Every structure is written in C-alpha cells, then in structure tokens.
C-alpha cells in the first residue's frame, strides 16, 4: 500500500507539473497574437503577390533555404520554427543588410547569441549566386 501511495503522489506531482507547463504555454500566447496560429493556419494565409515575382528564382532560393536547414530556427508562412518567423522581417532591410544577416557578418554579432551567430556563418560556404537566390527568396516568400 505504501508503494501505491508513492505512485499516486508521484503521478499527482507529475500532473501538477504538466498543468503548470500548460499554464506557462497559455500565458505565453496572447489570444490576439497572429503568432498563435498553427503552421497550417498560417499556410492558409498565402497572398497573391507571388505571381509578380520570378517563380524559378524563388523556387531555387527555397531549395537553398531548405538545404541550409534555415527552417530549424526560422519559419516562413508558418512552416518551420515559429520562434523566429521571417515573414515581413526583411521588408525594411537593404539587400546588403539581408546578406549580412544571412552570413553572420561582424556587424550583427551583438544582436545574436554566439550559437546563432556561428550557425549563420555556415551560409558563407554558399556561392554568390546561391546567396543572391536565398536573399531573393527571403524578400519575396511571404
């Protein structure tokens, strides 16, 4: 019977921990924030401006984005890591600034954790053409 009580108390403790984890997640997400939408919901928000861009370049850029594992840390249209969404983020940046962010340039070092900074530098292995395609994708894929 002591064993049964030990199990009950342990499971009760686990449930309390689980409920508080749910509470933490709930208060982290305001009901009005668009970021609360699931990836699927955000995917359904696709705009029509994609007709105006070079679809072939966009597709090639997307391939590089996927190949470099950018979605491990970022999301576009709800696909990928929701912690750092890229939708609209590059709208106010010049091509050079986007380039600096993508390749982990010295100029952005202070704005990133050391880990993120080093990970971005992995993009330096890309050729200039590939970087241009990636930047083009970031500018238009939202």
């Amino acid at each position: 019977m002591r064993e049964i009580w030990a199990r009950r108390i342990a499971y009760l403790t686990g449930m309390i921990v689980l409920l508080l984890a749910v509470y933490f997640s709930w208060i982290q997400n305001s009901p009005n924030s668009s970021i609360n939408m699931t990836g699927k919901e955000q995917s359904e928000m696709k705009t029509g401006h994609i007709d105006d861009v070079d679809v072939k370049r966009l597709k090639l850029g997307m391939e590089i984005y996927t190949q470099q594992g950018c979605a491990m840390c970022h999301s576009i249209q709800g696909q990928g890591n929701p912690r750092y969404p890229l939708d609209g983020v590059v709208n106010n940046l010049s091509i050079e600034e986007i380039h600096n962010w993508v390749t982990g340039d010295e100029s952005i070092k202070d704005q990133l954790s050391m880990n993120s900074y080093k990970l971005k530098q992995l993009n330096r292995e890309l050729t200039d053409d590939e970087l241009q395609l990636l930047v083009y994708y970031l500018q238009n894929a939202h």
Partner: protein
Amino acid sequence: MIKPVNSVFVAIAWLCVYLMLVLAPLFVLLIGHVPSGSGFWWDFSMALGFTAMAMMGVQFLLTARFRHISAPFGIDIIYYFHRYLAIMAVSFILLHFLIIKFIYPETLGSANPLEAPFYMTSGRVALIIFSLMIISSLWRKQISIHYDEWRLLHIIFAVSGFLLAFTHINGVAYYIDVPEKRWLWGVYAFLWLTLIIYIRLIKPWLMFKRPYKVIKIKQERANSHTLVLQPNSGHEIVHFKPGQFAWLTLNSSPWHIKEHPFSISCSAVNNRQIEFTIKDLGDFTHIIKDIKMGDTAYIDGPYGIFSIDEYPQAKGYFFVTGGVGIAPVMSMLRSLADRHDKRPLVLICANDHWQDVIFQEDLNELKQCLNLNLLHVIKNTEEISSHNSQDNWICKKGLITEDIISALLPVDAENYEFFLCGPKPMSDSVQLILHKQNIPLGHIHLELFDMV
C-alpha cells in the same frame, strides 16, 4: 500511536520544495524580458523540455540519501518516488520531441549526426539514453543485467544523459538568450552537477575515512551469515535505531559503487560492534561467501523508518517476518530486551522449512526476557510438534492465514504498531488481512526492497 502529525507536515513541505525545484526553470524563464509566444504547442513543448530536465536534475537529489529528506517518507519510498518520477520525466521529454516532430518537423533538420548541429544530436542522444535508462531499470532482471553492472550503467546513463540534455538546451538557447537567464540556468545545472560530485566523490571519501573491520562471521541457518563489524580507526560506531538498514561496501573501495543495502540485526543499545545478517540469495548477496575475518567494510547509513523507535508510545508491537526478514526484527527484539521493555509483543515467524528458521535459538532465549508471544509458521513440514511446552512457542503448518493473525491479534490491537518484513507476496497478503481486521494503514509498517 500513529506517526506524529509533524512528519506529515514535513512530508508535504518536502513535496512543495520538490515542486518548486522542478518548476524553477519555468519561473526563471518568465523573469525580465520574456520572448513573445510562438504558438501554444511550441511553447508547451519547450516547457515540457525545461521541466523534464529539472525533474531529471532533482532525481540526483532523491537518490543522494540525505537523511532529512528521506526521514518523513522512508528511503524505500523515496526510491519508488524516484522511479515513477523518472518514468514521467522521460515521458515528458518524449512528448517534447513528438510535438516538434509532428507539428514542426522542419525544425528538427537532419537526424544524421554528421550533418546536424551538435546540440540537436545531443538532444536526440539524450532521449535515447534516458529511454535506455528506464528500460534497463524496469526490466533489469528480464534482460539479465547483473545488479552491480546495472548500477554502474545507471550512473553513466544518468550523468551523460543529463550533460547531453544540458548541451541541447544551451545550444538551442530558446528563452535563455538573455545573459542573466543563461547564467541562472547555468547555475541551476551546476548545482545538480555539484550534487553528483558530492555523491560520487565526496561522500565515498567520508566513508573511506571511517572504515570498519570484519571481526567475526557467524554461520546462521538457511545459507545466511551474520557479519560482525567494528570501527577500524578509532572512530565511533554509527548510531542507528533498531530495525534500520545501511548500505554496506565489502572488500571494495567506496568509490567502486559496489555497495548493497543490508539489515542491521544487533541491538541498538550500547554496542561497540554492528551486525548485519545476510542471506545468500544467489545475486549480489553471493559475495557473503568470499568475506573473511579482517576484511574491510564501509557503511553508508543508517537509513529507514522501519523501527519501533519511530513509535515509542505504542502499547505493544506485532511483528510478522518471512525468511531473512527476521533480521531487522531481531534488532528490535534485542534492543527491547536490552532496555528491559515489558510491553506485550507478538512475532509470527514464517519459513519454508523448520531447519531454515534463522535465529531459532536466539528467539527462544529472547522469550525468557521479553513478554513475547512467538508463533512459527512452517510451510513444508511433517516432523515438528505443534506445541513446544518447554520453550512455549507454537508452530503451525502452511502459510500465514487470516485465522492465524486474528487468533493472535490483541484485544487492543489499535494501540499496537505492526511491522512486516519478508517476501513481497507475504507482506501484501498480511497487509490485506490486517486491513480486514480494521488495523489502520498508519499502524502497518514495512520496507520495500527489490525495486530494480
């Protein structure tokens, strides 16, 4: 008298401390700059990861054998708690992974360790290690892992899994991207690592400074031996309550993790020696055959709340033992005799064969100076008499039944404390019988072994 109410409060207080330790990372995350939400499931998955990591950290505290923590519960219960919490913590880690796997699959990237970032591989390997740790603990006997090898494996799994999980959290760096939070999380992890160092290095060193010597080996019945130990370097003998047990390291260094829990079987009154009675059951108890006079031993203990001294106001004590389960009860009976305690005592001593009754002669001697009603229950016998008038004990054939217990139950049984020690089926059945006889659960005491 039932357990003091104070102990219940202390137990609840420790549970609150546990919850605070486990939930501390979540509170730390909510201090200062808090990143905006990333969707319920994402944040839920992260919260699960952080709390599971904290739970794994507290696991080290639960098995560190701190007497103040274990006292209100009994260390056996702490170990059970450790087991069930580990199952939940690993379930939370698995859920953390599955949420990401099915809702945000792109974030996992390649599973190939050559392509994936190190911190992602660390997380994956930690999950595998923690899962192996659970499997090897729950089914150790079924997969034929020797106890000593399992313990070593368990420690390696626990420490490596914890370090890899910490590397994963630190590498991913969500929520702890602010230096202050990273620092706090680092301190938190450092505390657990310090605890590991204490358990595995400092505590064995303290034991090493207090060695014991085997001064006598008494051959007992049923393939059992009693080891008599004496301090080897002038230090005081460990103080214990009758009925307690200790982890004993025999013929090995305290750092070698070759310790095993054994019951103390001698009196707790004015002793300069300490005795452990060990039955060779073919597993780690097999070492008893290799012990020689003069061998060195180290004691980590005493532990346990299976003791008459936890309930000093009882009107009497009722003991039920099976096989070598008599060992801690002998410690209690011998202590009561040394204290000239005349309170009424009942002992039901169950064994398979008459020749297997450990301490048969000692019990007869104790009957002379204690107010003891002794009943032997022998499973397989045709030879012995049902009543020995000379020694005034009674013997029954078969198993302990409700009839036997109800016949021996005192009229004022609600004022007695009941101690059960023996194989689990026996303890379970006697518990149920006592429950049927309206004995409150708080008056029935037993220690749970064979957890792994």
